[in-house]
């Protein structure tokens, strides 16, 4: 049964640790760096400890100087292993006593216990101590003397031991150095913490009861829900057996290592949760409406619709030069040009050059469009993650205007483009003009030869007066035809420009959409996925 529950614990712990690893990986730069470091350390420690002997339980005797850790160590081990003394601080190096040495070597190496301070109970069965088999008892140096200010051995081992026995004494049991630095900090470690009130022989039974009650009360105030307090006396041996029994129980269960790691994990996760207060799952894809919004905003940055309008208008105006009625054009030229008097130079060429310049995107507007998208998506996310998403969305925003300009200048026809049918119409108009001129000449000839009898007409028709009305009719119809075809082709131009505009806008939108997907939406979605993964890992680590 023990084996099963151990396996279960181990399995649960394993998946939670994996989640923590994920959190560390994804939370880099998003979480309090100290917390991330701590989590990474815990992962490392857990990995090490779980690889090492699970048959052994590391129990550390910790406490202030002069509380009798070494005496108690000797009393439990039944041997004078650790030197005891009256000078403070006495113990400078950690001593270890192992019950059942098989497989404990690597663990002791990991704990960095020096060889000469390792002791083994040769036979675990002597003195009927089989129930302590698997116990590694550590006698730590103190953590509160002036020496401990520079030597962190005790602190280090308190962080890694499976089970901690706090050795307190009537004089020191309420010291801030134990309570503030460790008991409060190791909150939630009830299962792997035992408190020993040593030197109880110095107290009368009543005093001892008062003392124990006071200590328990104090511990409860500090958040230790079920304090385990054992009163002992290393000198008289009183209470040592109860301590041994407590230790034996933990050692037999073989779970202290997991419990310790679990408690550490719980605590860390609690702090992580505090650091990342409101973790909400967000959609990991950018929905259609937002995508359309982005494309629309980017199109505005390029001025797609304005471009369309310009296309339509400019074509309409320019077409007049090509497909318009030539006579009207000639008449307009006769009007005085105000610009001439200003001597501005080739304004027309300038305008033509301006009109020929290609499509570009406004960088500031592109920036704002991406910003708006990111802000909309990240509403409700914690600030650091918002920044991350924003960063991701903008990761390629610098290239975006260029890319857009490049992509679209391929599509957008320059406004000074001249379609072939404009040429044809122009030729047709000039043909008509030629015909008009020809008819005019004919009419002139008839008048000269036929009416005024200037001479012999070279040909019959040139002198025939009867033809004159027909020639006049022809002249009028040629002019009319020119006017009519100018008007109708103008309509065609407008129609074609409208069509062109529709096609252009559609094409542009499509291309903008593709670019937006590649350069904005994809990096953004990657970041959202990261966030969701982190969210999932947090949930998994929480148990």
């Amino acid at each position, binding site marked *: 049964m023990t084996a099963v529950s151990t396996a279960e614990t181990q399995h649960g712990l394993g998946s939670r640790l994996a989640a923590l690893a994920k959190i560390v990986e994804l939370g880099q730069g998003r979480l309090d760096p100290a917390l991330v470091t701590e989590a990474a350390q815990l992962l490392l420690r857990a990995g090490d400890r779980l690889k090492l002997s699970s048959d052994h339980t590391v129990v550390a005797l910790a406490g*202030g*100087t*002069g509380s009798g850790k070494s005496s108690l160590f000797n009393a439990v081990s039944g041997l004078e292993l650790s030197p005891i*003394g*009256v*000078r*403070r*601080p006495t113990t400078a190096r950690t001593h270890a006593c192992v019950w059942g040495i098989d497989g404990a070597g690597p663990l002791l190496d990991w704990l960095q216990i020096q060889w000469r301070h390792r002791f083994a109970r040769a036979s675990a069965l002597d003195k009927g101590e089989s129930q302590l088999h698997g116990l590694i008892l550590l006698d730590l140096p103190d953590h*509160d*003397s*002036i020496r401990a*200010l520079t030597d962190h051995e005790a602190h280090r081992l308190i962080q890694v031991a499976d089970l901690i026995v706090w050795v307190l*004494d*009537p*004089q*020191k049991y*309420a*010291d*801030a*150095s134990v*309570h503030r630095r460790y008991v409060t900090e190791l909150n939630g470690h009830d299962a792997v913490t035992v408190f020993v009130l040593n030197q109880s022989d110095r107290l009368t039974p009543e005093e001892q009861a*008062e*003392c124990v009650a*006071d200590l328990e009360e*104090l511990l409860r105030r500090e958040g230790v829900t079920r304090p385990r307090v054992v009163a002992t006396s290393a000198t008289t041996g009183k209470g040592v057996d109860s301590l041994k029994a407590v230790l034996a129980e933990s050692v037999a269960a073989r779970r202290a290592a997991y419990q310790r790691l679990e408690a550490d994990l719980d605590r860390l996760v609690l702090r992580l949760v505090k650091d990342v207060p409101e973790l909400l799952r967000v959609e990991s894809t950018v929905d259609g409406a937002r995508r359309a919004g982005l494309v629309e905003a980017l199109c*505005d*940055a*390029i*001025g797609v619709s*304005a*471009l369309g*309008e*310009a296309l339509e*208008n*400019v074509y*309409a*105006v320019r077409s007049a030069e090509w497909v318009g009625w030539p006579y009207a054009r000639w008449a307009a030229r006769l009007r*005085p040009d*105000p*610009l001439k*008097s*200003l*001597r*501005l130079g080739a*304004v027309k060429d*300038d*305008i033509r050059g*301006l*009109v020929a*310049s290609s499509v570009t*995107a*406004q*960088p*500031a*507007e592109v920036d*704002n469009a991406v*910003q708006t998208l990111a802000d909309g998506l990240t509403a409700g996310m914690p*600030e650091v993650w918002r920044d991350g998403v924003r960063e991701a969305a903008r990761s390629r925003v610098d290239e975006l*205007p260029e890319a857009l300009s490049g992509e679209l200048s391929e599509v957008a026809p320059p*406004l000074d483009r001249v379609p072939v049918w404009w040429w044809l119409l122009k030729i047709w108009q000039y043909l008509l003009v030629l015909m008009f001129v020809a008819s005019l000449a004919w009419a002139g000839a008839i008048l000269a030869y036929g009416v005024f009898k200037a001479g012999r007409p070279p040909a019959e028709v040139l002198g025939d007066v009867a033809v004159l009305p027909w020639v006049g009719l022809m002249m009028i119809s040629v002019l009319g035809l020119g006017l009519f075809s100018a008007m109708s082709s103008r309509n065609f131009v407008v129609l074609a420009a409208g069509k062109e505009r529709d096609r252009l806008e559609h094409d542009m939108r499509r291309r903008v959409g593709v670019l937006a997907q590649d350069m904005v939406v994809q990096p953004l979605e990657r970041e959202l996925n990261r966030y969701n993964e982190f969210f999932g890992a947090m949930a998994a680590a929480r148990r």
Partner: protein
Amino acid sequence: MRSAARNTPDHGTGAGSGDAVTEEPDIAGPDLADRDAGEHPESPGEQTVAFRPIRDDEDMIEDAPVRPGEECEGEPADADGEQDPADAAAAEAAQDAQSLEDDPEGAEDAEHTDDADGMEDIERAEDGEDEPDGDRVRSFPMPEPVSAALTEALNQLRTAVKGLHFGLDVPGSEEARKAQASVLAQLDDYVIPRVHMSTAPALIVVAGSTGAGKSTIVNSLAGGKVSATGVRRPTTATPVIVCHPDDHEWYARGDLLGGLRRLDEPTRDAPPGSVVLTSSPSLPRGLALLDTPDIDSVVEEHHEIAHRMLDAADLWVFVTTASRYADAPSWGLLRRAKERGARLVIVLSRVPHRSREVVVKHFGRMLKEYGLGEVECFVINETSVRDGRLPEIEIADLRIWMSALSADDERREAAVKSTLNGVLNSFRTRLPALARHLETQVALRADLRSDVDAAYMGALTRIDEATRDGSLLRGEVLARWQDFAGTGDLMRTLQLRRGAKGHQQGPERVRGLKAALRAGLEALVNSAVQQAAEEVVARWRQRAGAGDRLAATPGLGRPAEEIARRTTRTITAWQDHVTELIRTEGVTKRSVAKLISFDVESLSLIFMIGLLGYGATDAPAGAGAGALPQRLLRGLLGAESLRNISAKARSDLRARVGLLFDEETLRYVDALDSAGIPDEAAATRLYQATYNLEVAR
């Protein structure tokens, strides 16, 4: 000033009524009550002088005849630094004149009080000379003449320290606040009263770890249960002063530790900021013991109380035990004693007989290594404690030491002086440290402020650049401009004078271009503002401590909500302004005006496009050079006029955007201010006060 006044002997009462002299030993308490009960109204200023000194009767009688002479001498002394009481006295005199009719006796009383009030300095000097004989331990030796300069310097120092305000939460500010509180408490509790009273009963503080047996030692010396003992840790929560019954009144008066409330007996739930005052005849006169809470238990408030008590004491008795003497907190206390230059005695208690020699030797060596080898050390063996007391034999040495100190005035005075000097010396390092921290805060604030300015200056520069390098003439603006120019509207805005009145053949195109230009500018400004906001936060994040925390203030990482609206307003206003400029200043060249009229609206639009879109307004003059709008405008308005308008329009845009940014900046300044504004002059004042103190000593 206050404590000085409070100390003033009330000669007036004594001299005024003959029978008061005989009652001399019982002091102000009942007397004061009587006066209060009387109809004579008391101003707060007067109340502080209501105490009467305890002194031998003949002393008083001797004093009395001398008074009139003193009075005359006293007045000039008044002038230096004693303005306030003098004013109060004047006000009072007026009041007294009124009350004379109702209560002649009370008035007389009060008048005398006034006199005494005004001349305390002189009198104190006199009293000091009156105290040569050492056997009169009961009397409170009046202080040596305290120079007005020293009083002034201390008061100035107190004001300076009190005025410090560490607003920003940078690393170390918590410590600085604590240090400030401790300096202030020490000034009030100890230095100021002590400077005035010199050797008056010395206070011996008993301090040490929890469970070291401080209370047990105090009880044993007092010969009775004055402080609670027990197995519960921590035991003592409220400090206890034990003194000889004769000194009781003096302590009750509360010059030393003036801020603490006196309690008669320890109670379980004594409010913080109180002290128990009891007396025991077993203690020698002129010395009092102060039992303090621990310095290292889980109840952290105790540490603060203990440290405050230590700061107010003349001598320190540091108690530790055989199992504790290597504890870090204990050595922290010893270091503090060394730093403050306090007179120190060490008691090593609970030493088991067996190991006495080893432990004492080891401890002695540790002390020597720490530079405290000279310190007197008493050893108390581990014995059974009965009734909260040690057997007399264990504390015999300690008692002898105390008696010697009590009897030997010179030695006591030397000890007291040395501690006082030590404290004043410690100010040399403690006060500059405070000032330095304040300077750090001021510097940090300036840095944070400059971060904001730098970010927004950068934004302004970006806008400037974008309006010069032609990047504004892109996207929709370009399309609309092409539309406007390509369809001939550009040309149509220019009309021959003799033609018909300017006809608007495409106002919607003008409007479209104007709107596009505005939108472009707005986008530019908004994007710059956004970047600036992010940059401020990024810069603040890089500053440790306060900047980091401030950067986390919600909403600072992005522009204000209404920024878009404000930008629109700003840009629209600028456009209107430019139109107005063109209308009023853009006087058309006369030669041109004869021929051509133009539409101001369109022309200003062309001008804006030329200014912001093409940028190069400073293109060399001359026909044909520069971009189309410039050439056009130059042709119409003349190069000079165009340059003027361009410069004006550009600087106006800058100013308007600058104004918008200022409003944005305000949010950061508010955040900074709400975190607390350190007073820049406070550090200088503190240095000055420290220097003055050194000069006055």
